C-alpha cells in the first residue's frame, strides 16, 4: 500500500440544548413550539431594558454532569462573558457565554477505530462551556420578499458547546464521534439531541497535513464547515472537503495562515460545500465579563455529588453487557444504537427472564422487527417488557419451547392488534389454553404412545421395514394427546417403543 499523501485533521464543535424545564437565565419554558412564536418569553429573555439575568443552577449542574461524563475537569471558579454581535435573533445584541474561563476542559470521548482490529481512539475534548441560545429568524421562503420575523421562544435555552481537539482523522471517525456523543447525551438524559428541532448542531473544522518528501508535514488552511443537519451530512461534507482541499493544495500550494479562515456551508442537494461570506475573521466579539452575573464557584463536594448522580454512560453499559450479560458486541451495539428507552426495556426483560442472551436475541430480532413493522416506539409497543420477560422466563425454565413461546407471542400480538388489553398473566393463560407446557410426565406420554400404536399398528411395522416417515402421523396423534410435549422427546420415545416391541 502506498504511503498516504496527506493526513486529514478534523475537529468538531457540537452545540447541544440541555433538557431543562426553564431557560438558563429566566423562568421561561424551553419547550419546542415553533407554531406559537414568542409565547415563551419574559422581559429577561426578550432583553427588555432594566431586565437582569439570574443563573439557573439546575442547568449549570446538568452541564457539569455532561462534562463529567465526557471525562472533563470541572473548574472550581467560572464566569459568564458577553459575546457581542448584532443580529435580529439576539435581542440583547450580546450572548451570555463563557470565554476564557469555561466551566470544564480537558476531557475525552473514546470511539471505535475505523479498523475494528485497532484499539479504540480517544478523542480529546478541549472544553465544554455553557451559553444561552439565540432566537430564530424566520424568513419569507415564498420568494416574494415579505418581512422576516423573529421568534424568541428559543432565546435563552441552555446550550452546551463541546469543542473537540483536532484528533479525528477520517470522515467516518467524525461521524462515529457524533454518534457516540449523541448516544452518551441520550443515555445520561441531558438532551433529546433532536437535530431536526435544532437541539443538536455541529460545525467541523477541517484541513490537511500534507506529507512532504523530506518527512515534514505542511498544514493547509483550516475551513469551518456549517449547515450540516445530519451525521451523514457531516461525513459527506468532510469527505467532499478533503478531496476539495487536496485539489486546492495541488493547485495553489496555500498553507495555513496564508489566507483567512474560510467558512463553507454544506449543500446537501448538490453534495458539495460552498463558500460563505467571510465575515468571521473580521468580527470582534468584544468579550468581557458580564457585570450582571456573579462568577460561579463549585466545590469538590458538589462535583462529587453530581458525579454520584451521573447515570451509567454507554461505555460502562457496553462493558457490563459484555461481561455480566455475556452479550456479543454486535447485540450490544444494536441495543445501544436504539437509545436509552429500548435499552432500558431490554434490561427489564433480561432481568425478568434471567437470561441476557435470550432477551437480547428476542429484542434485537423479534421486537425490533415488529416495532419497525408497526412503526411505533418501544413506549407505544403493546407487548410490555413485563409480558415479554414473563414469556421468556418460561423458555428459560424450560416450561415451554421456543416454538411455543413464538406461538404465545404471536397470539398476544394479535390480541393487541384487536385492541384487547394484554398483561403478563395472559402468558400463563395462553400456555394452558393451548396446552403448550412441556410434558415431562413419561407415563402420560407412554400411555399416549401405546394408544397411538394400538390404533395404527401398521405404522410400527412400516417403520421397522424402513419407512422413516411412517411414524409422522403417530407423533401428531401423541402430540395432540399430550399438548406441550417436546416433539423431539416424543419421537425418540416412540422409536424406542417400536424398536423394543420388535
Amino acid at each position, binding site marked *: 500500500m502506498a504511503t498516504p499523501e496527506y493526513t486529514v485533521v478534523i475537529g468538531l464543535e457540537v452545540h447541544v440544548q440541555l433538557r431543562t424545564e426553564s431557560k438558563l437565565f429566566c423562568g421561561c419554558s424551553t419547550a419546542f413550539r415553533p407554531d406559537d412564536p414568542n409565547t415563551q418569553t419574559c422581559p429577561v429573555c426578550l432583553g427588555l431594558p*432594566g431586565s437582569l439575568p439570574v*443563573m439557573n443552577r439546575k442547568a449549570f449542574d446538568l452541564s457539569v454532569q455532561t462534562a463529567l461524563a465526557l471525562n472533563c475537569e470541572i473548574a472550581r471558579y467560572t464566569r459568564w462573558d458577553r459575546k457581542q454581535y*448584532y443580529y435580529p435573533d439576539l435581542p440583547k445584541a450580546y450572548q451570555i457565554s463563557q470565554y476564557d474561563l469555561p466551566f470544564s476542559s480537558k476531557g475525552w470521548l473514546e470511539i471505535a477505530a475505523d479498523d475494528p482490529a485497532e484499539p479504540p481512539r480517544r478523542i480529546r475534548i478541549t472544553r465544554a462551556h455553557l451559553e444561552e441560545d439565540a432566537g430564530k429568524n424566520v424568513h419569507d421562503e415564498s420568494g416574494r420578499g415579505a418581512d422576516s420575523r423573529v421568534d424568541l421562544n428559543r432565546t435563552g435555552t441552555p446550550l452546551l458547546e463541546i469543542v473537540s481537539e483536532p484528533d479525528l482523522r477520517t470522515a467516518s471517525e467524525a461521524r462515529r464521534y457524533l454518534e457516540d456523543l449523541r448516544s452518551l447525551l441520550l443515555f445520561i438524559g441531558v438532551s433529546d439531541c433532536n437535530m431536526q428541532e435544532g437541539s443538536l448542531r455541529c460545525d467541523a473544522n477541517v484541513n490537511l497535513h500534507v506529507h512532504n518528501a523530506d518527512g515534514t508535514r505542511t498544514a493547509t488552511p483550516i475551513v469551518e464547515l456549517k449547515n450540516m443537519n445530519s451525521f451523514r451530512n457531516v461525513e459527506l461534507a468532510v469527505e467532499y472537503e478533503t478531496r476539495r482541499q487536496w485539489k486546492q493544495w495541488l493547485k495553489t500550494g496555500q498553507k495555513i495562515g496564508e489566507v483567512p479562515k474560510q467558512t463553507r456551508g454544506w449543500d446537501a442537494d448538490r453534495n458539495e460545500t460552498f463558500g460563505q461570506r467571510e465575515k468571521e475573521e473580521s468580527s470582534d466579539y468584544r468579550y468581557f465579563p458580564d*457585570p450582571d452575573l456573579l462568577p460561579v464557584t463549585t466545590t469538590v463536594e458538589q462535583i462529587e455529588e453530581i458525579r454520584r448522580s451521573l447515570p451509567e454512560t454507554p461505555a460502562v453499559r457496553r462493558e457490563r453487557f459484555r461481561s455480566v450479560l455475556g452479550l456479543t458486541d454486535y447485540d450490544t451495539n444494536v441495543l445501544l444504537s436504539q437509545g436509552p428507552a429500548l435499552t432500558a426495556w431490554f434490561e427489564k426483560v433480561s432481568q425478568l427472564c434471567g437470561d441476557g442472551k435470550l432477551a437480547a436475541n428476542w429484542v434485537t430480532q423479534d421486537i425490533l422487527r415488529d416495532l419497525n413493522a408497526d412503526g411505533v416506539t418501544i413506549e407505544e409497543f403493546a407487548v410490555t417488557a413485563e409480558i415479554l420477560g414473563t414469556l421468556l422466563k418460561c423458555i428459560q425454565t424450560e416450561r415451554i419451547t421456543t416454538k411455543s413461546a413464538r406461538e404465545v407471542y404471536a397470539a398476544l400480538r394479535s390480541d393487541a392488534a384487536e385492541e384487547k388489553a394484554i398483561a403478563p398473566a395472559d402468558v400463563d393463560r395462553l400456555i394452558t389454553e393451548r396446552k403448550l407446557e412441556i410434558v415431562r410426565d413419561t407415563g402420560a406420554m407412554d400411555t399416549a404412545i401405546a394408544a397411538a400404536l394400538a390404533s395404527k399398528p401398521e405404522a410400527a411395522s412400516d417403520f421397522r421395514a424402513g419407512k422413516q416417515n411412517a411414524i409422522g402421523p403417530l407423533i401428531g396423534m401423541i402430540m395432540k394427546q399430550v399438548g406441550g410435549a417436546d416433539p423431539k422427546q416424543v419421537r425418540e420415545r416412540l422409536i424406542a417403543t417400536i424398536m423394543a416391541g420388535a
Partner: protein
Amino acid sequence: MIVRQSAGNQEMYSSMNRPLTSELIAQLQSGETTSRQLVENSLRRISELNGVLNAFVSIDADGALARADEIDQRRQAGKPVGRLAGLPVAVKDNMCTIGLPTSCGSRMLKDFRAPYDAHVIQRIVAEDGVLIGKLNQDEFAMGSSTETSIYGPTRNPWNADYTAGGSSGGSAVAVASGMVPLALGSDTGGSIRQPASFCGVVGMKPTYGRVSRYGLVAFASSLDQIGPLAGDAWGATLLLECISGHDKRDSTSLNVERPDWMSQLDSSLKGLRIGIADEYFVEGLDAEVEQSVRAAIRVFEAAGAEVVPVSLPHSKYAVATYYLVACSEASSNLARYDGIHYGHRAEKFSDLVDLYSQSRGEGFGTEVKRRIMLGTYALSAGYYDAYYLKALKVRRRIREDFDKAFASVDVIAGPVSPTAAFRLGEKLDDPLAMYLNDIYTISTNLAGLPGISIPCGLTKARLPIGLQLQAPALEEARLLRFAHQYQQATQWHREQP
C-alpha cells in the same frame, strides 16, 4: 391621564414652602392632612413650576389621586398603611413603570412602555408611596447637568440659569422645589449626590447591591445603584429602608439583612473618626466650597468626632478608570437598542446593517454616542488589555485605598463637587470639564461604597454647596447618622430657594 410637560412658562414662581417628610407623615397621622391633599399640592406645585424647572417628564395625576384616595380610605378605616403613608413620590425616568413611559431621556425610548414595574416601584407601592410621575435626566443617565435629555434641560430652582446637576437632575429639583417630598435617582458616578448638592437636598448612593437594579435601565451595571433624595436625612433614611433588601431577580443584589437605620439616627458621634483626604482638597476646588466643607467638618468635631487625615493615593486615576469601565459596560448595555425589537426605528434603511446604524444614529444623542464609541474601543481586540483590563486593575487599587483608609476612620468627608452649580450650557461642549465635575463622587461607585450628599452651605450667589460622606460597604447607618446629627446641629437643610 398623562401630561407631558414642556418648558414655556417663564413666570417666576412663588417662594418655596417645602415641608420635610417627617412633618408630612405627622400631619397625615394626626389627620391634619390627607394623602389626597398632599398629592393635589404636589400636582399644583408641578403645574406652577414645571414649565420653568422641567423636572417631570410624565405625570400620572389620575392614577396618583386614585391611589391617594384608596390609602386615605384605608387609614380612615383604621387599617394598616405602609411606611410611605400615602406620600407623593417620583422616580427618575430610567426606572421601569407599567403605567408611564420609561424614556431614559432618550429619543431611542421616547415611546417605550415597560411591561413590568421595577423592583423599587413595587417596593414603593407596597409601602403605600404614591407615584406621581417620572423625572428628567441626562440621556441614559450619561451626564452631570441634565441637559442632554430629549425633553430639554432641567433648571436649578435656586437660579433657573444654572444646571440642576445630573444625571438625576429631575429628582433633585422635584424635591428641592417642593414638588414631591421624596424621589428616587440612580447614581453611577455621582448622579444622585452631585444634583442633590447643586439643589440643596440630601441624596444618597447606597452600597452596590443594597437596592435591586431589577427594572433600572442599565447604564453601567457594575456601578449603577438606585438611591433616595429627600429634604433631610430622616426622609432619605425612610425611603432607603423601603427600597433596600435582597431581590433574587438581581444576581448582584446583596443577600444581607437590612439593619434598622432609623433607630440609629440619634446616636451620638462621640468618639467616631472622620477621615479627611488631602486628595479631596486640591487645585480646582472652589474656595467657597472648601470653606463650607471645612466648616461642616468642624461641626462634627464639635459633636465629638475626631478628625484623622487619610490618604487615597489612587483617586487621581478615578476619572480615567471610571470612564473606561462605565463606557465599556454602557457600550454593551446599550447595544440592545437596535431598532429591531422595540424603541426607535429609522424610517428609511437599505438593509439590516443600515437599519441598525440609522436607528441608532437617530435614536441616540451626542454624549451617548461618544460613550458608546469610547467603550466599544476600550473592549476591542488589541485594546482590551490596555484599557478595560487596566481600568479593572486600577479600580481594585482604588478599592484598596478605601480599605486602608477605613481601617483607621469611620467615614471620609469631603466636597461632593469641586464647584457649586454651573451655568446651563457652560460645559455642554467641553466633555472633559463635565467629566471632571464628578471627580469626588466616582471613586465611591468604583469601590462599591455608600456615599451621601448633604447641604452644608450656600455660595455668595445663593447656590447650595454639598458635603459628601463616604463609608465602608454596608455601613449606610454611619452616613445617615452623621447626616442626621449634622442636621440637628445646623439649618442648611432648611434653606429654600
